[in-house]
């Protein structure tokens, strides 16, 4: 069994300054040896994905903190990741678990509103929260790709690559998800 202990963090950056040219596996490999700069680069690269995955399930106001929690947890558990290229799928799973744990630890009413108690939201904020609520009401397999696409502005290819899904699957999920979202919003407009 190959279990690599997490090395002590080193002060020496082993990657060049322009991390955009380095592939994810190399960054993970460097981060696993304790290179915090490499982990920082992974954070920059995948924070948007994690944010989208969390936003698909958790209240909007809590998401920025949860993003930090996910990456700190990832930093502690990075040595367990055996396929560096699968980092995207791995941290997305971690984000889902974080959202589940957050849901369990939150009051039931928290999920009903993204608005801060006592404040009067603008019509734009209300409309946004309505759409977010409709997104979260979709089946899990649709809401995540659709949130990444509509909120985080990720393209279909990027979603497929980072979540480890096929292009066909993501196309289907996006297509079906937007149809359900339209139905949901149409229903709310009619009945709400």
């Amino acid at each position, binding site marked *: 069994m190959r279990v690599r202990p997490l090395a002590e963090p080193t002060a020496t950056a082993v990657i060049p300054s322009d991390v955009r040219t380095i592939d994810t596996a190399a960054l993970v490999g460097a981060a696993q040896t304790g290179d915090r700069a490499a982990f920082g680069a992974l954070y920059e690269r995948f924070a948007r994905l994690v944010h989208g995955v969390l936003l698909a399930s958790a209240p909007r106001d809590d998401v920025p903190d949860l993003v930090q*929690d996910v990456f700190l947890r990832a930093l502690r558990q990075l040595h367990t990741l*055996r396929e560096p290229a699968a980092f995207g799928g791995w941290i997305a799973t971690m984000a889902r678990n974080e959202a589940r744990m957050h849901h369990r*630890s939150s009051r039931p009413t928290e999920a009903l509103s993204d608005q801060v108690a006592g404040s009067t939201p603008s019509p734009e904020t209300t409309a946004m929260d309505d759409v977010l609520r409709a997104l979260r009401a979709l089946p899990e397999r649709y809401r995540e790709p659709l949130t990444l696409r509509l909120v985080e502005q990720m393209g279909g290819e990027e979603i497929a690559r980072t979540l480890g899904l096929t292009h066909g699957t993501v196309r289907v999920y996006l297509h079906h998800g937007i149809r359900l979202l339209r139905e949901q919003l149409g229903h709310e407009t009619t009945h709400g």
Partner: protein
Amino acid sequence: MADDYLWDPTAAPDPEIERLEALLRPAAYRATPLRAAETPTRRRSIRIGAWAALAAATVVAAAGLSLAGRSRAAHLAPWAVAAAHGTPVVRNSAGALASGRLERGGVVETDARSSAVLAVGRIGRAELGPDSRLRLLDDAAAEHRLALERGTMHASIDAPPRYFLVQTASALAVDLGCVYTLSADERGNGLLTVEQGEVELQMGDVNVAVLAGNAASLRNGRGPGLPYPVSASDRLRRAVAAFDADPASDAAVGQVLAAADAHSTITLWHLLRRASPAARERVYTRLASIAPPPPTVTRERVLQGESGALQRWRTDLQSSWVVDPPWWRQLWLAMRR
């Protein structure tokens, strides 16, 4: 056009999707620096009520695990094997008795009175029922591959899609992130039942999607059978079994068509792909009478077996294919992870 823009944000915009994007823009990620690792990760206060709920959940979880006789498996190291009942045996790749950890090429075996729990690397667990034999083919970083040589395995996996694969003598079960039970005999006859997520059964160019709440049989020499809802009537089950045993039988196709209803479009859609060209029109007519295809999916395209048309129809159908377990079962599954 809308689909192009939905897939590719650089394509010609779709006004409705643009409107949604504009509405949601304030919720998008805004770059913020990563806090230091030493920062406490929880800033939200935990109320007394939460502690009480946590304590209650812990008691329930502990009781559940204890009742199931699986407490020894709760903290297994990767590829470790624990006995749930009786005395399961672990052998190395040379066939010699080994300690309680499965190595590549090694097997876990149970007899009629024993069952075992295996930690599937770091991605989940597999419970092996009585009279079973499970071999570890590959524990590489790119995938974990097991072979269920006989018996029953209940897998609970939390990993990227297509990372966990289980080979039987008749088909390959590809995990797309889920909880499922697979049984097979030494010739590959068996059954797959999916509780959560989705499993793809593959043999050659035959490819069957089994979603949560559905099952499909495995047949020696023929691979995966038609999927059907777990809640299907006995009549539909018998009809599917007859088709799986003899896919060329016109009578078997007729039985499936007669027994299928609005809850079993997963069966009809797969039958559309598997039926002979001569039988396909009848299947199309039956499925279209239950769930009319989208306008672009014409009878001609379907009868020609055009993959794009079939997939498009599936898009409309598949939301009704998933039947998640009841809440108490979901709670139970979550507790055992």
